[in-house]
């Protein structure tokens, strides 16, 4: 495994030019804060939902290139999806990061490049942070909540 597996050009691109990165989102329905205290990664995620669909999403945070780039990719590929579909995609991403194959390759878009990160066990959590936050946000909303805060180990 080489450094380029970890820091693919696409990842560096998302890190340098983040998409949908913002500390605000007009009319958001749910806001979650996730952190990974061991790494020092912090992520705020806001989601706006309309008709069972992700209508808008913005993240912001302080973290390594992997966590921030992964959140950026995630934002791109889930906006516009149905909630159930986005949850399924998040699960596909999780499985990929645990080395259990790449399902929904097409839908994951740039997300597939994170497969290389799976070879760096200590960085897997970083790649997952944004997706875990998404799952939690959708879940929090479905249970009627508006905000939630989670610390990962």
């Amino acid at each position, binding site marked *: 495994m080489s*450094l380029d597996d*970890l*820091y693919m050009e696409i990842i*560096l691109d998302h*890190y*340098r030019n983040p998409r949908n990165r913002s500390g605000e989102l007009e009319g958001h329905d749910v806001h979650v804060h996730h952190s990974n*205290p*061991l*790494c*020092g*990664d*912090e992520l705020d995620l806001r989601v706006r939902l309309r008709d069972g669909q992700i209508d808008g999403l913005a993240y912001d945070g*302080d*973290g*390594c*290139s*992997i966590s921030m780039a992964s959140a950026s990719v995630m934002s791109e590929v889930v906006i516009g999806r149905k909630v159930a579909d986005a949850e399924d995609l998040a699960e596909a991403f999780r499985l990929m990061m645990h080395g259990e194959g790449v399902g929904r390759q097409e839908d994951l878009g740039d997300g597939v490049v994170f497969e290389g990160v799976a070879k*760096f066990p200590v*960085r897997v959590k*970083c790649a997952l942070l944004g997706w875990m936050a998404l799952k939690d946000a959708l879940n929090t909303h479905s249970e009627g909540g508006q905000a939630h805060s989670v610390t990962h180990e």
Partner: protein
Amino acid sequence: MFDVATVRKDFPVLEREVHGRPLVYLDSAATSQTPQQVIDACTRIHAEHNSNVHRGVHALAEEATEAYEAARAAIARFVGVDASGVVFTKNTSEAFNLVAHSYARRRLGPGDILLATQMEHHSNIVPWQLVAPEAGFELRYVPVTAEGYLDREAFDAIVATGRVKLLAVTAMSNVLGTLNPVAELAGAVRAANEDAIVVVDGAQSVPHVGTDLAALNADLLCFSGHKMLGPSGIGVLAGHWDLLESMPPFLGGGEMILDVTLEGSRFKQAPYKFEAGTPPYVEAIGLGEAVAYLERLGMTNVRAHEVELLERALPALRGVEGVSVHGPSDPAQRGAAVSFSVEGLHPHDLGTVMDREGVAVRAGHHCAKPLMRALGASATTRASFYVYNTLDEVDALVDAIEATQRFFRP
């Protein structure tokens, strides 16, 4: 002064390559490397004298016991206490927990202040937090200045209440490198309250600067073997026998008792009453050998060597664009653990890319989250030096940082 090239030959791991590059190990503040002499001492016990200590009349048991007690005596001398004042634990953290349970929880109560500092390692915070609610004492922290020193005014103000019954302070910060004026602080605390005791975190200082408990004006000292060329699994609580003896046992079990009946037990004297069960005897013997190794080098020389490295590293790091170094800028006021931040680069990325260059540094909160908050950082990168590091390795550190910057440059 010792010859670093000769010293390096004693450390087999330094011959290693990582990712095809020679290892530049700059993470000794987390765990130091182990010289062949220590590895051999551990092997020798296992291969020739292995036996439970303090329990047998047979030859192996006598030999193991003798080696174990000789290690205790050597370690005691190394920090200026009597052998009867050395309690073996598994690490610094256990030593602090012992003091928390057997001293703080029993002797401090409502109205009393246990004074720690904002630059403490979690091991010198969490144990106090765990017993404070039961005991009812108040836990206060001395803030840290922007330059990485303890805020003396704030310290004086808290001490002036006369309510500080225990000062828990590190002799050297594992993040900032700051060498704290422990003796002075201890004097101030004692002047304000003659019943106060002073507990020193020596995890970073004992490996790097000559230590004498009396000179520190302290009562108890905690440190770990794995940061001072010793094996993992061994730590020390060192102190005055009278104080230790006045404390009730913490862990119960075999070896620490005089008598056990179904109704209750009587305990041995310190240090044995604190050593429940079979102790990490191979590890204690290994630590004894590590101490002998450091004494051969001479702690004054160890410190001088590290100051030399610092004098190269501090300006060199500051010379790199975007790099800011945390902690005191004067090498005389600090040890050789150097934390820094690089603009636009997260410590984890830095750590990963530097690792590919063969340079092992630590990235994260260094088990000092309250200090991180004070620094306004969620993590830093830390390079830390020891007897086997060279000036060339300082240069390799700087090169690796620059290489990382190039890698991530848009």
